[in-house]
């Protein structure tokens, strides 16, 4: 078994030993599976039955129905797909751009570091939600636009964390050894340093996932997210707030699912941080990938 896989398994086991984190993993797993296999469930998020509008939770519609008579639980499940796809895509974009920037900036230092970090500073200076709204104004209102907008706002965090890791590892013996044996900069960055920096990046993936879901929901709540009738938790909150008196469950139930999802990601992220810090304190986290030490 590859080392990284062993490390993943080790961390997962440690994670599951913590009750809060274990519950969070189970909840997220359930949400993810429901989102992936939603098409195989007897749920139709778009079917309108206006005669049944704003029905309270019942045996047929567990979460009740919305103002168009659509099944709220079906929209929550399909809304999970919207949120998770946005989160996954956004994290992928943020990591794909942010990690190389951090690697190059930290590895080479000097003017490259200065230029790249000023670029990151510019991104950081822009409030995330406003920047995302501006991007959507340019790109148009779609899931892809929301995904890109959220992803771009996540670039700085990956870049800074990666750079910090590279700076910590840059002068370590195993990196110097590779260099002295003629390893290229690219090899050293991507094959030597990066594999030994993945732990905080993994934590950042988890943390940014929750941020991305929240940001996507916020954009939808503000009316610039995924266009209707595509289900979205934020859109459900936005519409549901108009019916708080007649049908409080309309906003509350999707809100609870959104809250639990974000809470789960945060709980896992916090647990992972603790696990990795424990390893760091015991020296386990400092073993370079492929080293015999």
């Amino acid at each position: 078994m590859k080392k990284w896989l062993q490390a993943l398994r080790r961390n997962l086991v440690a994670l599951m030993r913590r009750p809060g984190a274990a519950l969070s993993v189970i909840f997220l797993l359930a949400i993810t599976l429901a989102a992936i296999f939603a098409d195989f469930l007897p749920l139709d998020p778009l079917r309108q039955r206006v005669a049944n509008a704003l029905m309270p939770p019942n045996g047929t519609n567990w979460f009740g129905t919305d103002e168009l008579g659509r099944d709220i639980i079906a929209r929550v499940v399909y809304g999970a797909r919207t949120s998770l796809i946005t989160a996954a895509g956004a994290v992928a974009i943020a990591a794909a751009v942010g990690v190389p920037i951090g690697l190059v900036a930290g590895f080479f230092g000097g003017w490259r570091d200065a230029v790249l970090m000023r670029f990151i500073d510019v991104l950081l200076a822009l409030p995330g939600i406003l920047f995302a709204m501006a991007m959507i104004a340019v790109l148009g209102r779609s899931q892809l636009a929301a995904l890109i907008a959220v992803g771009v706002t996540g670039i700085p965090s990956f870049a800074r964390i990666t750079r910090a890791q590279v700076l910590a590892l840059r002068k370590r013996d195993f990196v110097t050894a590779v260099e002295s044996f003629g390893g290229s900069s690219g090899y050293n960055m991507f094959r030597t340093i990066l594999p030994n920096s993945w732990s905080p990046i993994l934590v950042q993936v988890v943390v940014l996932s929750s941020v991305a879901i929240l940001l996507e929901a916020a954009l939808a709540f503000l009316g610039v997210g995924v266009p209707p009738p595509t289900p979205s938790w934020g859109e459900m909150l936005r519409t549901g707030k108009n019916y708080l008196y007649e049908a409080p469950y309309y906003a509350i139930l999707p809100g609870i699912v959104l809250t639990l999802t974000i809470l789960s990601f945060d709980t896992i992220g916090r647990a992972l941080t603790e696990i990795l810090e424990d390893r760091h304190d015991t020296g386990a986290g400092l073993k370079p990938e492929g080293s015999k030490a």
Partner: protein
Amino acid sequence: MRMTFLPSLRVMGVALMAASAPLSLTMGSTVLAQDLQTGTLRVGTLNDIANYDPQQFSTINFPLIKNLYDSLIEYTENGEPVPSLAESWEIAEDNRSVTVTLRDDVTFHSGKTMTSADVDATLQKGANPERGKNVFATMAVVENWETPDATTVKLNFKQAVPDKQILDLLQFLIVLEAEGVDNIEAVPAGTGPFKLANRVVGQSITLEANENYWREGEPILEGVEFTVFTEDASMTAALESDALDLIYNGSSRAAVRLRDAGYTVVAGPGKLVQVFRINTTRGPFQNESFRQAFNYLMDRDAILRVGYAGLGEVTALPWAPASPAADPAYNETYAYNLDKAKELLDASGLSDAEKSDWTILTNGGQEDAVAISQIVQGSLAEIGINVELDVRQSAEFTTALLAGDFFATFGGVGNVQKFPSRVATNSIYRTVNNPVLKDPHPHPEYVAAIEQVNSAFGEDVQAAYDNLNKVLVESAFGIPTNSYETGLIVAAPDVGGFTLDIDNLLVARTLGFTN
């Protein structure tokens, strides 16, 4: 025909109106003007005004128009004309002119006395295609006008014009001070019961009583403070927490809830009709059969219930029930029927790809618009046509709407309870300068039908209305769905003295507090 109201009768008329107004309320207090106390009325609205030009007769300007200005005549809630700035009027026997006699005791907020020169300046603005705004279309029947003396104005028409249309024109003419016409968008120049005291753009407008107002005993209030809200929920919460005395033009859903909670809900006669506007110059909508299918594709009951909490009536024609052209038979003939819609869609000869190659422009800032657009989207999906919503925020939506930059969209139309050709004041129904359909009008049969209505007398009138209705559903560039309330007033129980305006404008001059 001559109508003259003596001053004493006029006062009695106003008093009777004030006393009878509550009969039309869904819930109201029966108070006479003398029982009302003065004070400052705190009003919540959902939008800031566009400008102070009363000829821009758009809903967002409704809170101020009848408070800063007066029109030549007014309608009672039942549509009866009563004098206002015009003391009397006389329509010529041949219906080719009307002579208006102005009151001589009216002053503008500046202190200047109103004369026929001010009416002349108002008419000049209204007749100007660039500056006339919503009045321009109504002025189309006017050939010219004369002002023989300071209190007389004679309007000459291009042809014989029906009485009702002449009265509509007089009711629509709000007199502006001649010196203020050029700057009217920025500075109000009216004779109304209140004067502008302060405005914080986007936040609040404060009016103070016009102490020289010509109507005896009015206004009752010392002032009116408008607060602009961005959310219906926060506005209703402000009313419920006693931070406001009255909310204007809120949602039907909130009004129903507040009515059940004991608040006074005032629904006037000036309903709007929601119309699915179709740009017949674009995409599949150039095909008549494709367009006509939408007469059957509208689930009007669902739209009324979801969008407007059931407050209103379904209608397949752009008329309020009180309109002389209203014909309820059309509601049955063109009821929601997907089978008939599909037949017409099939008859269009368009491919499936062509049928779906368009979007529904949707105002993302209006939850009701988003909901009813989804209902149409859902109906289309049931017969295999999948279209996207082109959701834009309010300002962007309005720009696209007024420029005709859309395939289809929902939009309310007004003047639906007046003379039928007044429907042509709404952009989609304009016969000339139509911003959506452009010139020359692509539906000459509609233009001819409006002309026929404008020139019909006696027994020909009903035939003209019938023809117009037939042309409207056949040309199908506007598919009406339902009438709905606009300018809904929800007030605290201690507010009384409501005057119902024919267009549902807010009339604050008779309002006061009961304790």
